[in-house]
């Protein structure tokens, strides 16, 4: 051991070049693909100009994976995909097969281990989410739990091509929204409903006050002196509990087990296909945190998906479907209440007021 050289410490080397991870068939046909199709839910074939084809088997993933599970995935990839695989931008696993005969045996092995295959085309490809109670301290809800319970309820839509179009679902455990929650077909957002508690005794030692004041989207925070110490106070009329002050200032916590919960948003879209990208809009302002299964949330999401599936035309995303039928109709056929919370009151809100007599009765 004494003769082992001390490893040289390297920095700034960047990631390993992707070239070394590409299946030889992919490398041969890089940039020369001709077309693709789905052979069945979860199985894609991409055909190159050369005539060669690569088969992709897409499998569900919890995103939070143990090394043992990853090693088992590697066993599958070794057995069926020449040792080549990738992950998708929505956290699914993709096995890259040169041999068509391996598709069904791979799917059998995956299913036997409780791993569904699907997530292609007009399906629900899983729920994009972040850390929640597992690792984040600004979270108002748990993300993995919500993702799991929602997909348990909607897994039939993962392993099939039944929906009018793809439905992208995301969970953000707080308004920081780590992930594209603000442009999802269905988004679940963790929220607080009470203002922060301010620790005046310690604030000046923990927080840089100008940044804390600037952190508030509604200018609800202002500097104040309390018992001779520089601090801040929160105008409770202006606070909408976004929690950004807590992010900048540890002396202003606002997590509250009884009043925190989630809101549900619908109709967002990132792709430019047919219509412009759209932001998600508020559908349900508040549902309680009821771990471990969040039944109210699961039921609400399922209802929205079922109504969409029954009513939308082929190729219509949820947002496009709603634009066509109108938002009032959406609230009507889903039975969701329309409340004062649904009406915007931030900057630019008046641009959302309805300035047309287009009505449906």
């Amino acid at each position, binding site marked *: 051991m004494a003769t082992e050289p001390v490893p040289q410490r390297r920095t700034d080397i960047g990631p390993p070049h992707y070239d070394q991870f590409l299946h030889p068939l992919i490398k041969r046909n890089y940039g020369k693909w001709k077309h693709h199709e789905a052979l069945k839910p979860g199985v894609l074939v991409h055909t190159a100009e050369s005539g060669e084809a690569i088969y992709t088997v897409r499998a569900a993933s919890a995103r939070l994976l143990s090394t043992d599970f990853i090693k088992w995935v590697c066993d599958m990839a070794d057995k069926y995909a020449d040792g080549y695989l990738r992950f998708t931008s929505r956290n699914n696993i993709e096995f890259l097969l040169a041999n068509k005969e391996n598709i069904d045996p791979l799917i059998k092995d995956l299913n036997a281990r409780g791993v569904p295959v699907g997530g292609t085309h007009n399906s629900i490809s899983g729920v994009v989410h972040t850390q929640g109670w597992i690792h984040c301290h*600004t979270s108002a809800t748990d993300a993995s739990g919500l993702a799991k319970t929602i997909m348990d309820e909607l897994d039939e839509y993962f392993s099939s091509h039944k929906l009018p179009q793809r439905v992208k679902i995301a969970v953000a455990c707080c308004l920081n929204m780590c992930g594209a929650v603000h442009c999802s077909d269905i988004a679940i957002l963790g929220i607080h409903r009470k203002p922060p508690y301010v620790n005046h005794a310690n604030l*000046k*030692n*923990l*927080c*840089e*006050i*100008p*940044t804390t004041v600037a952190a508030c989207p509604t200018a609800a925070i202002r500097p104040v002196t309390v018992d001779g110490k520089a601090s801040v106070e929160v105008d409770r009329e202006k606070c909408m509990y976004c929690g950004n002050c807590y*992010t*900048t200032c*540890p002396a202003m916590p606002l997590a509250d087990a009884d009043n925190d919960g989630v809101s549900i948003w619908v109709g967002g879209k990132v792709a430019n296909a047919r219509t412009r990208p759209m932001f998600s809009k508020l559908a349900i302002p508040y549902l309680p945190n009821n771990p471990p299964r969040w039944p109210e949330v699961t039921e609400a999401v399922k209802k929205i998906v079922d109504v969409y599936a029954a009513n939308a035309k082929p190729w219509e995303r949820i947002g496009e479907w709603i634009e066509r039928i109108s938002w009032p109709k959406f609230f009507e056929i889903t039975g969701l209440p329309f409340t004062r919370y649904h009406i915007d009151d931030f900057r630019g809100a008046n641009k959302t007021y309805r300035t047309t007599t287009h009505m449906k009765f």
Partner: protein
Amino acid sequence: MREELKRLLLERRFDEIEMKALKDKKSLRGMMAVLYDADDLLVHRAATAWGRLALSSPASVRRFMSRLAWQLNDESGNIGRGSPLVIAEVARANMELAKEVVLVSTHFLEDRGLLKRVLWGIGRVGEVHPALVQDIIEDLKMLLADAEADIRGMAAWALGKIGAKGIESSIAPLLDDERSITIYENEIMNSVSIRSIAQKALGITGCGPAPSAA
């Protein structure tokens, strides 16, 4: 450009760094990045340079103060290794620039990894503005018993710089401490024994804080 900046800092050519900062705005970006360097001397020298810039071109330094404080907030995903040093030097040179952030830096005692530099900053600020750090004297006295030589040595050093009174019994054990630590003073790294730091701290006590060094 980064290599040139490092060379100027290591050669103590601060005038040229100040000229550069006036002419090329991007050089301040480099002065932020160099704060993460593994070379302790380099980072301290950069802090010295920031202190001088705080006097010669406060307008260009101003916007970095919030950023440096934000890098001390663990929510940020940054590792503000240089922040305690730079904030202290700017506070000494031009408190108006640092007044919103100086207490956040001096009171950042929870993090062991940054503690030595935070203590250095406390000493530098406390030497000139002792009122700002009176409320952490008790914390510093507790750190005199720390297992790590760097920490107890720096705590003693900081207490000395502040001119803290009534520390005799807490600092007494350090009078037998032969361990040496390195402290950045007068632009160089000095190896000092903890014993001599304690002696100095006791010697200054009762006479008020030392006149501020440049």
